């Protein structure tokens, strides 16, 4: 087994209360590496086609990468995946903090969870000792209590906890998996899958060092980050995310009023809720993830409303979703809502976007007081924002329960033309970057396997990092990533190999979506994105469906998929060795022009993006 891995994947059957260890060979690791490809492998191999995301047969996978937990900035990343209750297909999300590194230090490369426990349960991993324990005393508790009680149970304050929150227990379809109280695998409703399995938490304590084949690249890279902080990571280091929102306002693509308006019309007011103002007001310090000197995590404290630093502070996506989109300019209410989203375990993006959908529909008279239970939805009400966090997390009827379904399902329940106001892709709300203004978002959103993802996960740069376990905020070149990967494993990988591996992982995720009935028809933007932004410099610009279709087909070509339907070509399946996953589609696979475009340098839409 190469260094960088332990050669051990933990399997947990909650129905039977059993655990066992899989020890894959080196070829498995070289082929899949980690993160997304691990997730796709287990979803394609073990999840029966067409099941509901809350079926016990669904798998919930926690996957590290070969660099996760090694001593270098950005190595505190892990991936979580399952069949998603939000998109009904490939669910994946990444998180930072310390939990993933702790899992690795406990001697595990991944955890694959199946079944459903008969009562609330938590998984306790103490290095190589694994135990399913009664979690009844944790059920219904907020995330801080859960972490505290587990640490008390075992008398160890260094235990790291990932958990589903009460939103996950209540099957809120955009519940997230929270780790370390302020880090989340936020997108695609993975916390709800965890809750559906009666699995409240996974507590981990690991005391080993992850073995490295050669630590030279790690030492040099860590030194490079520290010694070039101002040149390469100034903004992240001093402000974290969300310091440049005024730029979006000036350019006219701030996310406002459910992607309708593009501006608040007052740049100083936008500045009131950005990370610079947070730094000057409620921020008490910057903090970091495992082994990271960039320390881009802001921590805020507001005693008057009980906001505590351990829940971090609002990141850009949260500021976009619950501040600018809802036109809330009260930083106290924003920080409070951020904390309660982390206490209950909800994805800020889908929550804010779904509330924005409801607010616009209410404004238009499409959603009535009967639908809302008398709640008068309006823009700019920070107190209402906080009330709605609890209503949704608890699925309080009627409005909280409705919004807990996410905007697309809620719109389909209500009808009355409200679906056209759901700003989603594949049922997953689009994140807080407007594809009408940002090329990278435009070419990513429709084709990312998870739906409305903003991280560029359809492109190599992010895809590579999500596979090997490195934070995308680190301004590493691809060559630096390869050096770290080879230093960890002792392999002789190249940039070309990890990009090909990235394409392989994306093709596996594509196969899973195709198997679940998600394909070409779903690789599209919603109606709102084809309308001009109402205010500001971009108000004359229209993104056409033809342009998106053309770029989508080019993306298919880049990965060796059929240009019309996005079905992987036969030679692509040959090349990646993916036929075992593609039996369901065998009679629809055709041969293409006999070339594998992804192996060519500089090949268009899917190529590496330099920021």
């Amino acid at each position, binding site marked *: 087994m190469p260094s960088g891995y332990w050669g051990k994947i933990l399997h947990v059957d909650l129905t039977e209360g059993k655990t066992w260890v899989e020890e894959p060979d080196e070829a498995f690791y070289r082929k899949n590496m980690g993160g997304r490809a691990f997730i796709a492998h287990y979803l394609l191999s073990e999840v029966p086609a067409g099941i509901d995301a809350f079926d016990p047969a669904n798998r919930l996978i926690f996957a590290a990468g070969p660099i996760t937990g090694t001593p270098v900035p950005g190595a505190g990343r892990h991936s979580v995946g399952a069949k998603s209750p939000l998109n009904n297909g490939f669910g994946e999300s990444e998180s930072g903090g310390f939990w993933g590194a702790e899992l690795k230090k406990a001697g595990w490369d991944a955890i694959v969870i199946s079944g459903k426990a008969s009562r609330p349960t938590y998984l306790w991993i103490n290095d190589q000792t694994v135990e399913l324990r009664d979690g009844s005393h944790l059920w219904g508790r907020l995330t801080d209590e859960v972490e505290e009680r587990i640490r008390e149970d075992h008398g160890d304050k260094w235990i790291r906890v990932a958990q589903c929150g009460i939103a996950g227990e209540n099957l809120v379809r955009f519940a997230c998996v929270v780790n370390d109280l302020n880090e989340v695998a936020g997108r695609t409703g993975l916390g709800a899958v965890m809750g559906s399995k009666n699995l409240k938490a996974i507590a981990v304590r690991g005391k080993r060092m992850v073995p490295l084949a050669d630590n030279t690249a790690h030492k040099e890279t860590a030194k490079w980050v520290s010694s070039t902080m*101002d040149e390469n990571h*100034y*903004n*992240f280091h*001093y*402000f974290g*995310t*969300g*310091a*440049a*929102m*005024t*730029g*979006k*306002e*000036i*350019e*006219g693509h701030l996310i406002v009023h459910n992607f309708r308006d593009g501006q608040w019309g*007052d*740049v*100083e007011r936008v*500045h009131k809720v*950005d990370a*610079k103002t947070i730094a000057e007001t409620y921020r008490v310090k910057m903090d970091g993830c495992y082994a990271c000197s960039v320390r881009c995590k802001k921590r805020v404290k507001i005693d008057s409303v009980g906001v505590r630093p351990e829940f971090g502070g609002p990141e*850009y*996506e949260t500021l976009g979703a619950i501040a600018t989109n809802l036109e809330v300019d009260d930083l106290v209410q924003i920080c409070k809502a951020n904390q309660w989203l982390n206490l209950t375990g909800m994805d800020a993006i889908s929550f804010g976007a779904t509330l924005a959908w409801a607010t616009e529909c209410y404004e238009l008279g499409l959603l009535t007081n009967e639908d809302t239970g008398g709640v008068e939805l309006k823009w700019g009400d920070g107190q209402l924002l906080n009330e709605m966090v609890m209503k949704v997390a608890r699925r309080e009827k009627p409005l909280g329960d409705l919004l807990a379904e996410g905007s697309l399902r809620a719109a389909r329940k209500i009808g009355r033309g409200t679906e056209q106001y759901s700003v989603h892709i594949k049922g997953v709300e689009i*994140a*807080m*970057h407007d594809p009408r203004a*940002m090329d*990278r*978002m435009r070419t*990513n959103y429709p084709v990312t396997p998870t739906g409305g993802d*903003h*991280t*560029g996960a359809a492109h190599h*740069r*992010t895809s590579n990092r999500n596979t090997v376990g490195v934070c*995308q*905020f680190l*301004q590493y070149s691809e060559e630096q990533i390869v050096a770290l990967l080879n230093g960890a494993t002792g392999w002789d990988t190249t940039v070309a190999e990890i990009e090909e591996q990235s394409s392989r992982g994306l093709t596996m995720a594509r196969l899973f979506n195709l198997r679940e009935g998600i394909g070409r028809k779903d690789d599209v933007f919603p109606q709102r994105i084809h309308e001009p932004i109402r205010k500001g*410099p971009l108000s004359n610009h229209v993104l056409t469906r033809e342009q998106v279709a053309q770029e989508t087909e080019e993306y298919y070509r880049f990965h060796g998929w059929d240009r019309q339907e996005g079905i992987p070509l036969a030679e692509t399946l040959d090349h990646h060795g993916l036929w075992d996953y593609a039996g369901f589609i065998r009679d629809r696979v055709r041969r293409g022009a006999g070339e594998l475009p992804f192996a060519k340098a500089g090949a268009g839409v899917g190529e590496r993006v330099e*920021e």
Partner: protein
Amino acid sequence: MKIAISAFGDVDRHVKGRRELELADGATVSTVLAELGISPTAQLTVGINGQLVALDSPLRDGDKVMLVTPMEGGSAHA
């Protein structure tokens, strides 16, 4: 003339806490960049009094100039 400046994102490191600049008549946004040691090819969003402007836009006494390094979603300059 005297203008107010504010900077957001990575460009903030060039401003080093300065809030105002004294410039000669006829100054443009490019003059501000030169004064602050910012490359004219740097990726920047520039606003004068909240309105998006180009580098050759003229400045007037009392203008509020915002310099912003644009965000990339979930990535480089978020």
